[in-house]
C-alpha cells in the first residue's frame, strides 16, 4: 500500500453528525468483515460508502439498521444509540428489495406505512408516481422486473419524505435511463436538505452524487472525508530524457510514485493535487545534470486513484 491509510478518530456525537460510527467490528466465523470502522456522516451530506465487492459495505449498513449485530464498537444516530423509533424516521433500501411477493406494489407500501408510520395512505400514490410505478400499482411484486423491484424499494424508502435515507447500491438492476433518474432524484434530495448514506461500488456514481465518502477495503476503512479531498485527481507529471533510468532515480527525490515506461520512453511521477510546478521540476533536473526533452502535466484518472487506495 503506497498511500497512507487513514484511521479516523471519531469525535463522538459532534453536533452536526447524523451518524457516528465508533470502531465497528463484525466477524462471520473466522472471516472479519469489518475491522474497527469509525467515521461520521455530516448532516445534509450525500455520504458514499465506496468499496469493491466484499469490502463490508452492506454489512456496515446492516449494522446501522439493526439487522446485524456488531461484535464490537457502537454507532449513534443523532447522538443516540440506534432504536426502532429512529429507524422509523429513516428511509432504507438494504441489499435487495424485500417485499411480499403475493402482494401488489400498493399493498406492500401499506405495510411499510403501517410499520414505520411514515407518510399516509395518500402519500403512497405520490411515491409510486415519483419512481414511475403508479401504472403498475396493483400488480403483484412477483410480476415485477428487477428494475421495478428496485424502484419499489426506493419508493418505500421515500414514503413520508424522511430526512435521512440509506441506500445500498440504489441503481442496481436499473437501465441507463433508470440510473440517470435515480441519480437525479438523489441530487434533488440532497438539494432539499436530506442526508443520504449510500453504498456503492461504482466510482462515477459516488463522484456524480456524493459530497462525502468513506472507502472500505476488506473491512478496513482506508479513508474518509469530502469527495473532492479524497477522490479528486492527483497531479501526474510526465517527463522524458535520454537516460530514463537516471531520470527515474533522480525523480525519486521528488515523489514516492515514480513509474518508468520504457515503451513510451517516459517517466511518470505523482504529486499531491496542485503541488506540481513544472518550472521547478525542470530546474531541479537541469541542476542535477539531466536535460529534459519532454515535460507535461497530466490529470490522473479517478479510477487510478481508487485502485491506488485499494491497492488493486
Amino acid at each position: 500500500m503506497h498511500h497512507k491509510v487513514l484511521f479516523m478518530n471519531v469525535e463522538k456525537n459532534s453536533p452536526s453528525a447524523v451518524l457516528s460510527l465508533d470502531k465497528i467490528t463484525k466477524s462471520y466465523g473466522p472471516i472479519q468483515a469489518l475491522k474497527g470502522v469509525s467515521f461520521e456522516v455530516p448532516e445534509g451530506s450525500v455520504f458514499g460508502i465506496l468499496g469493491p465487492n466484499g469490502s463490508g459495505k452492506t454489512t456496515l449498513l446492516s449494522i446501522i439498521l439493526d439487522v446485524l449485530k456488531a461484535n464490537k464498537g457502537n454507532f449513534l444516530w443523532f447522538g443516540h444509540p440506534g432504536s426502532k423509533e429512529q429507524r422509523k424516521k429513516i428511509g432504507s433500501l438494504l441489499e435487495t428489495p424485500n417485499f411480499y411477493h403475493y402482494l401488489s406494489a400498493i399493498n406492500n407500501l401499506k405495510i411499510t406505512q403501517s410499520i414505520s408510520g411514515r407518510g399516509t395512505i395518500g402519500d403512497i400514490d405520490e411515491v409510486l408516481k415519483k419512481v414511475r410505478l403508479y401504472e403498475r400499482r396493483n400488480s403483484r411484486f412477483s410480476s415485477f422486473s428487477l428494475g421495478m423491484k428496485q424502484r419499489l424499494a426506493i419508493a418505500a424508502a421515500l414514503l413520508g419524505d424522511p430526512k435521512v435515507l440509506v441506500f445500498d447500491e440504489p441503481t442496481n438492476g436499473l437501465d441507463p435511463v433508470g440510473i440517470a433518474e435515480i441519480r437525479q432524484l438523489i441530487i434533488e434530495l440532497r438539494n432539499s436538505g436530506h442526508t443520504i448514506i449510500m453504498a456503492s461500488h461504482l466510482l462515477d456514481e459516488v463522484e456524480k452524487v456524493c459530497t462525502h465518502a468513506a472507502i472500505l477495503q476488506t473491512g478496513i476503512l482506508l479513508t474518509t472525508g469530502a469527495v473532492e479531498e479524497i477522490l479528486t485527481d492527483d497531479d501526474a507529471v510526465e517527463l522524458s530524457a535520454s537516460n530514463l533510468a537516471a531520470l527515474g532515480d533522480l525523480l525519486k527525490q521528488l515523489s514516492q510514485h515514480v513509474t518508468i515506461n520504457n515503451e513510451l520512453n517516459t517517466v511518470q511521477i505523482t504529486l499531491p493535487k496542485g503541488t506540481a510546478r513544472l518550472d521547478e521540476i525542470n530546474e531541479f533536473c537541469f541542476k542535477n545534470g539531466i536535460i529534459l526533452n519532454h515535460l507535461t502535466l497530466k490529470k490522473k484518472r479517478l479510477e487510478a486513484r481508487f485502485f491506488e487506495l485499494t491497492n488493486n
Partner: protein
Amino acid sequence: MTPIVKTEWLKIKNYPAFWWVFGITALTYPGINYMFLYVYYDVIHQKSTASKVVTALMGNPFSLPEGWRTMAFFSSFFIYIPAIVVIMLITNEYTYRTNRQNIIDGWSRKNFMTAKMTDVLLLSIIVTILFAVVALIIGLSNTNINAPGKWNLSYYIGLFFLQTFCQLSIAFAVGMLLRKAFIALAVFSFYSLIVEEIAVNFLKYKYKNEIGRFFPIEISDRLLIRPAFISKFDEQAYQQALNAVKYHVVYSICLLILTWLFCFWLNNRRDL
C-alpha cells in the same frame, strides 16, 4: 386494532394461499366430526346383534355433554392443517426476507415476534371457535332438548384451545428453526405423526415407562382424552388418563411458555 395486528392483517388479507388453506381448515373440522357421526349412525341403524352391542356399549358419544369431549378428540386429529398456515406465515418472512425489512422499517425484534405470536394465538382462537360451533350444532342435534348438564363438559373448549395453541406454537418454532416451509412441515408432521407416536408407545408397552407423556406433542395430546366409551375396555386406565388432565394443563402451559421464550430468544440472537 393495534398497529401490530393491523400490519399482520395487511400481510394476510390479500394472500390467496392463506385463504385456501384456511378454507380447507374450516372444512376439516365439521368434516371429521360429521364423518364419525355418520359412521356412528350407520352402525346403530344396522339390525345385527353386533350393532346392538356396540350401541349399548357406546351410548351416543355425540350427545351433550359427552359430545364436547368426543368432538374435541376427533377435531384434534387435524392440527396439521392449521399448522400449514402457521408454518407458511413464518417461513414466508424468511423466504422473502421481509423479517429483516420489518425491522429496517421500524419494528423491534420483539415487535416482530409479538406479531407472529399474535398470529398463532388468533389462529388458535379461530380454530377453537370453529370446533365449538361444530360441537354445539352436532351436540344439540343429538341431545334431548330437556337433557340436564349439557354444558358440564364445555370446559373441553378451553382444553381444545390450549392443545391447539401449544401444538401450533411447536409448529411455529419448527418453522422458525428450519426457515423453509416444506422442510418444516415435513419435519413437524414426520415427528408428531410417526417419531413421537412410535417412541411414546414403544416406551410405554416395551419398557412400561411413561416418560413419553412429557414429549412435546404428547404433553398436550393428553389434554383431550379419548371418548368415554373407550373406558369400557379398561376403566382404570381411562380414569388415570382423566385424572392426569389437570397435570397436563400445567405441563402444557409450561411448554407453551418455554416454546415462546425459545422463539423470542432465537429471534433476538440471530442475524437477520
